[in-house]
């Protein structure tokens, strides 16, 4: 171990944490599950996620059954009885293949969870570096703006942005995002979570700024950009990685909530959250349509939470800073604002 870099030591510590590795395995399995969606849809289920089978009949163990019975009740799980078709049954009156929808919906949920986190992380890093490096009025301006967004309840801000933009889409310069695009919830979620990452990062940059190696770089004539990207950023990365991992949880929970309410992913696209919204309508007759996508969210969030904990311990074993994954609150930095 001696003489190796801090990243290698963190990797060694992480590798010896069996629980964290198991969680990573679970996450990888979920990732493979959703990535296999088009394969399963084409080769096994022979149905796209939005293909309806209202009047279709399938052979289940040699017996012909209706996908949707005349009173509108969808078929339940048939497992491998129909050669993989309708493995988990159909999703309601429209008779769409639930297994295919679960895989495709997961693609949307994970894309938004990971994509929004990327957006949040990049914005938060940029703001934290600018505020922490220049201090003074730049910091004042950025910090006040973060405070305001932070004071706004995440869900309400997401709902307001989500619905207003869902009506018409948005035009930013030459970039047009039409209503109904998955980019909208991705960007909305990425934006509203920025303060939760930028505030702790800014505090860290302010502390790093006082260290000798920064002074040395400035004395050698390094410009602001060089100090920010060459000196401060590499030292900021461990914290940023831990925060980003836990941010995935918040982004996915927020996506599920917004899509459940209709302010997130829009028809005909679906995510686990919007599938629950459809499922709750028929909860009494087909509870699986709610429980299945809900359980997928639970498993994903659980795996990220456990892995994130292990990652935090590996990167900073003596960490006293709590970075709890959580819909809404983080350990507030008293007075730092």
């Amino acid at each position, binding site marked *: 171990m001696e003489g190796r870099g801090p990243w290698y030591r963190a990797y060694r510590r992480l590798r010896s944490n069996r629980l964290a590795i198991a969680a990573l395995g679970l996450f990888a399995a979920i990732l493979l599950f959703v990535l296999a969606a088009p394969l399963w849809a084409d080769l096994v289920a022979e149905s796209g996620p939005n293909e309806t089978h209202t009047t279709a009949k399938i052979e289940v163990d040699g017996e012909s059954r209706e996908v949707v019975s005349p009173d509108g009740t969808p078929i339940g799980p048939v497992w491998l009885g129909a050669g993989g078709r309708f493995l988990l049954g159909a999703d309601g009156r429209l008779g769409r293949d639930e297994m295919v929808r679960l895989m495709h919906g997961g693609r949307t949920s994970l894309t938004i969870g990971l994509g929004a986190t990327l957006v949040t992380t990049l914005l938060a890093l940029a703001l934290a570096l600018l505020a922490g490096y220049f201090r003074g009025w730049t910091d004042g301006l950025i910090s006040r703006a973060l405070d305001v967004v932070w004071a706004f*309840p995440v869900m309400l801000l997401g709902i*307001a942005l989500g619905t207003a933009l869902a009506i018409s889409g948005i035009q930013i310069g030459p970039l047009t995002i039409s209503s109904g695009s998955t980019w909208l919830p991705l960007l909305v979620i990425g934006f509203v979570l920025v303060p939760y990452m930028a505030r702790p990062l800014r505090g860290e940059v302010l502390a790093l700024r006082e260290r000798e190696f920064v002074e040395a770089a400035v004395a050698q004539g390094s410009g602001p950009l060089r100090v920010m990207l060459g000196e401060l950023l590499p030292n900021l990365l461990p914290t940023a990685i831990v925060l980003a991992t836990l941010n995935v949880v918040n982004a996915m929970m927020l996506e599920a909530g917004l899509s459940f309410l209709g302010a997130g992913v829009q028809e005909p696209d679906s995510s686990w*959250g919007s599938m629950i919204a459809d499922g709750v309508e028929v909860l009494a007759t087909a509870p699986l349509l709610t429980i299945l996508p809900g359980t997928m969210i639970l498993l994903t969030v659980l795996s990220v939470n456990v892995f994130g904990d292990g990652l935090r311990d590996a990167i900073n074993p003596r960490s006293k800073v709590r970075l*709890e994954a959580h819909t809404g609150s983080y350990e507030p930095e008293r007075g730092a604002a």
Partner: protein
Amino acid sequence: MARFALRRLGGMVLVLFAISVIVFAIFAVIPSYDPAAAIAGKNRTPELVANVEETWGFDDPLPVQYLTMMKLVFTGELISYSSELDVSEQIWEGLPATLSLCIGAAVIWMFFGLLLGYLSAVHAGRLADRLLTILSVGGISMPVVLLAPACLYFLAIETDLFPTGGYVPLSEDPLDWAYHLVLPWASLAVLFVGFYSRVLRSNMVEAMEEDYVRTARAKGLSEGQVRVRHVLRNSLIPIVTLFGLDFASVLGGAAIITEAVFNLQGVGQYAADSIANLDLPPIMGVTLFGAFFVVLFNTLVDIAYAYLDPRIRLGESAR
């Protein structure tokens, strides 16, 4: 103390102003729609759109538009053009259900969160602690969109143990009120029970290493007295701040989902229904009032906190 309170209140006014500008921008400036048509909603006719255009003054310069919107919202003149109902009246009517839900859930999560956290810390490293840790990680990973429908299905639809939804006013029948709220309370509280027990556990485990704890033991206090009077009391301080933030975030977040699932007819369900109908005026009203309430609440918590812990107000004025 008075100076600290005044400064916080001054800051609060600025934040409220900024939030109102953001809400105005979200609904009237950023989207590429015709705001009058969007606000008129799904029953729009050319006359209605013209009427909205007139009332909201969308031809005026932006600052005037902003003032018009604020006047509409705060004088109670904001109406939903789809349902023709007054927005502030609807919010006011939904408030008892929403507050019952949130306050009850908060009591439950504080009680169980602290109890489990305490037990976990006292048995740190042993089997009970491990089991409680697993439970709490499960708790913080439990999405409300799964837990609320699952409770509804397994405990109300399948087994008839609890009612399937609806709200009974407290003044009508306190027992029935609580009976109808048990499942919504539980759905909302589980996540925070997990979270608070984790936070309390780690605070207490840390505090047990402190010098004052050793002093307390040295002067002959029993282990139970040390734990409750010294360790627990000092570990509760950060929990108070977290509680203020979380209570506010529940009110403006998870409560909306829970209300919609259990048909509680509160402010949250009003918001959920309005989103489903893309009815903008109620969403504006709920967002603005919700955010205002949350900011006000947090400021009051801050002031109360500074009153309890002098280090904070002194630290602020020293800067």
